[in-house]
């Protein structure tokens, strides 16, 4: 009779222990897997390089005229262009999805001949993508 409550206590303790272990394991596993997925899904880190250039002939080149809304919508491009406006060259890290978005919006990754110039506030810029 006396050992009954002890037994119950032991069972509850074992259950609680199993529960805690599973809880912690799930949290740790999910967290690490998700962080690895978020940071690794895009592949290696990429960098957008923007260089301010002097353009004399614009006859056979495409020029994309950037607006303030463009810069607001593309923070990576904004960061690199703002730097390039001051220091001639600007860099900004980006993920694979950001790279894809910039390719489809401004042709930043196009072949050398096709690459459009970007124009903002009277200055012209060329873009490159660096892979790390």
């Amino acid at each position, binding site marked *: 009779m006396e050992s009954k409550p002890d037994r119950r206590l032991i*069972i509850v303790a074992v259950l609680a222990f199993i*529960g805690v*272990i599973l809880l912690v394991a799930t949290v740790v596993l*999910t967290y690490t897997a998700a962080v690895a997925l978020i940071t690794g899904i895009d592949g290696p880190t990429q960098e957008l390089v923007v260089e301010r250039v002097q353009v004399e002939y614009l006859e056979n080149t495409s020029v994309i005229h950037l607006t303030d809304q463009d810069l607001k*919508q593309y923070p990576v491009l904004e960061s690199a262009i703002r730097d390039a406006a001051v220091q001639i060259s600007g860099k900004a890290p980006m993920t694979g999805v950001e790279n894809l978005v910039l390719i489809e919006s401004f*042709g930043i990754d196009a072949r050398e001949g096709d690459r459009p110039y970007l124009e903002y506030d009277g200055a012209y810029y060329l873009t490159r993508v660096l892979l790390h």
Partner: protein
Amino acid sequence: MEEDKNPKSRSRLKTAGIIVACGLAGVIAIVLGFMLADALILHAMEGSGGQPMLYVMEIAEPGESMIVPLTEQDFERHPALNAVIRGEERNPSAWEWGSRDRRVIGGTKVSYRESKALHETYDSIMEYEGAYYVILTTWP
């Protein structure tokens, strides 16, 4: 005979009860663990200072993928989607549209929570007024 059987079946019942309780505790712990990990990740990302963005890409041909039509309810639930597809954030670039079969039509700032919800809800091709769209979310 009956007196002999009773304690046996009782202990069997007890064992079965313990196994069921263990299983239940395990399932509850795993579900709680997933929820906690999810909340932790969102909390960590929101504290990172990065700005997640939502972009919408228009595609010329949907192919044979599943297509989900966008309704007014979708736009009401997700104002960011509304702003990019038919609102003030619609801002398509003219780059190569015509020779390529896709273009980004705009983007807007969203919270990590909203970004995650959008990513999970709209993982297929969407259709609105005869145009096809896919969404892209960035987590810096």
